[in-house]
């Protein structure tokens, strides 16, 4: 190999991670994914939901908020009285089910994504501090985290709902806050493990500062386990949103969210079953996709699995 070229490519590597490696990594990951049919399926399902959310305006035949009381409670197209105008039928206000399901994916994904983002970033920070500083600070912080676990969920939800009202943001806030403990605990555990690891000591021995050790050594190694929980939690939050819908404390009812649709449709379950069934299926579908994908991710990120590589 041309020495100049090597030095050049290696050199850029020193400054920054470079393209070639990432590409080969990508190929590698793709191969792992390709092998795992369930993971593949999960990814496909997940991508479908994401695409639905992104292209909602294009995909949905109607405005999801458009009411037509005269056309209310139409069954899906394939049933006797259904029409092709509303493929999945209409709800009790005559809004198009399909359009609402499509737009609902936006709420679900937003809640899932930002909820996880908040929970993860707060939980991670807390876990990092707790694990890295240790001692009294650790027991203090972890006491607080356990307190969140012990705090009755409903009290908190009602508190947020009545102080701040119902909004997408508040739903995100609720999930973001109540899911801090899981991220904090995992992070702390990992930090405790990583703190004792050889490469941290090795970094210490070359005179690296604490900050550098945190950012350059501990954080990157945390990402694996955190990404895994994040996918699980994301599907979890879509599940929890349904629960909030049941309590009538999810996003404002006009906002098409699967949880709200499911909750308000439940009283029609026997007579207009499609109103509650489709959002339920949408939740299960998305949850399945994320979980399958998350399972696969967990397997791939398991170092033991990676080690068999060579």
């Amino acid at each position, binding site marked *: 190999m041309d020495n100049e070229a090597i030095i050049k490519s290696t*050199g850029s590597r*020193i400054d920054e991670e470079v393209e070639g490696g990432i590409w080969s990594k990508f190929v590698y990951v793709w191969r792992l994914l390709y092998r795992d049919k369930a993971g593949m399926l999960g990814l496909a399902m997940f991508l479908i939901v994401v695409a639905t959310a992104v292209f909602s305006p294009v995909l949905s035949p109607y405005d999801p908020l458009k009411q037509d009381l005269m056309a209310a409670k139409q069954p899906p197209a394939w049933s006797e009285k259904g029409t092709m105008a509303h493929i999945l039928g209409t709800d009790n206000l005559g809004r198009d089910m399909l359009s609402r399901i499509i737009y609902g994916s936006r709420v679900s994904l937003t809640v899932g994504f930002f909820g996880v983002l908040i929970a993860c970033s707060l939980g991670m920070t807390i876990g990092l501090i707790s694990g890295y500083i240790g001692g009294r600070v650790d027991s203090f912080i972890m006491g607080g985290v356990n307190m969140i676990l012990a705090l009755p969920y409903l009290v908190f939800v009602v508190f947020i709902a009545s102080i701040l009202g119902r909004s997408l943001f508040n739903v995100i806030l609720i999930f973001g806050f109540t899911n801090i403990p899981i991220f904090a605990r995992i992070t702390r555990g990992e930090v405790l493990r990583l703190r004792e690891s050889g*490469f941290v000591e090795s970094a210490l021995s*070359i005179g690296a500062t604490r900050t550098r050790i945190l950012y350059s*050594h501990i954080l*990157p190694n945390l990402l694996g386990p955190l990404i895994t929980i994040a996918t699980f939690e994301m599907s979890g939050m879509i599940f929890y949103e349904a629960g909030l819908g049941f309590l009538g404390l999810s996003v404002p009812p006009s906002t098409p969210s699967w949880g709200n649709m499911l909750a308000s449709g439940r009283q029609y379950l026997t007579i207009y079953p499609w109103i509650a069934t489709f959002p339920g299926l949408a939740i299960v579908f998305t949850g399945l996709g994320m979980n399958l994908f998350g399972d696969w991710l967990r397997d791939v990120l398991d170092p033991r699995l990676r080690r068999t590589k060579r």
Partner: protein
Amino acid sequence: MSEHIRSQKPDSTTENQIMVRVQNLKKHFPITKGIIWSKQVGAVKAVNNVSFDIMKGETLGVVGESGCGKSTTGRAILNLLKPTSGKVFLEDIEITALNDNELRHLRPRMQMIFQDSYDSLNPRHSVAKIIAEPMVVNKTGSPAEIRDRVMELLELVGLNPNHAVRYPHEFSGGQRQRINIAKALALNPDFIVCDEPISALDVSIQAQIVNLFQDLQDQLGLTYLFIAHDLSMVQHISHRVAVMYLGQIMELTSCKNLSDNPLHPYTQSLMSAVPIPDPTRERNRTRIILEGEVPSPSSPPRGCVFHNRCPIAKDFCGDKMPEYKEIIPDHFLACHLADDKGGSLITV
């Protein structure tokens, strides 16, 4: 074959300057009870009152059974663990008196190669990044200079330059140890603590690495503290060897003395237990097999820490710890049974 260059003091060119001086070094790990109001109920005396000097350009070997405090000694010398008491000097700087910041600036001069070659490499960093990190941290040059230095180091330790873009898990144990060595050398240190750098390696690779260490010493005039539990390798590479037991040095002397005239009963049994790769000799020699197991460093026996396993222990050995002193020139020993003149002991 040439004279045993390594069995004597290093070359006279360095004029017997002291590189590292360790005085009464102690490292006790507290054992605590309770979670909130924890209190100390005891201590693991991992290193207990250890003193020695290492000359410039010398290799001091440290041997001893697992858990006797070898790694802890190495770490405490480099202040990776704050010593409980005692002093460590690097040339004339008292390392143990420095604050964190000053210590960081001294780090480039003293490096460590860690026991576990895999664990000490961050699995998410490329080799180039790993080797460059010491230089980046200490800002030793421009990116271009650092890049060149990385290339140079890779070559020095016998790795291919295109290995730089790979990740640790893509290497074999021997190669990983080379990466560790390159990293340790990056800052041109004067002194390196090598903590069992070869024990995880295959026989055929061990020789490669040992040779590399020696070559580097010859080229760069490095000083090593070489920790191992394989006596034959230690003897091969070291000028002098310290034998540790339960956090203390039992005997410290030149390699030649150690094999020809080991004084401490523990050293003797250790030497006899090292298997010799020669069926005839191995089967016909007598071995001093020690009874029992190494006591726990949190509750070492009273008196001489070795007396309860010592094949020649006398009653008074359990009374107090023998003094560690230079019994004959260049031969340090801690045993009650050494005679005054420092001559031979009651041999087993």
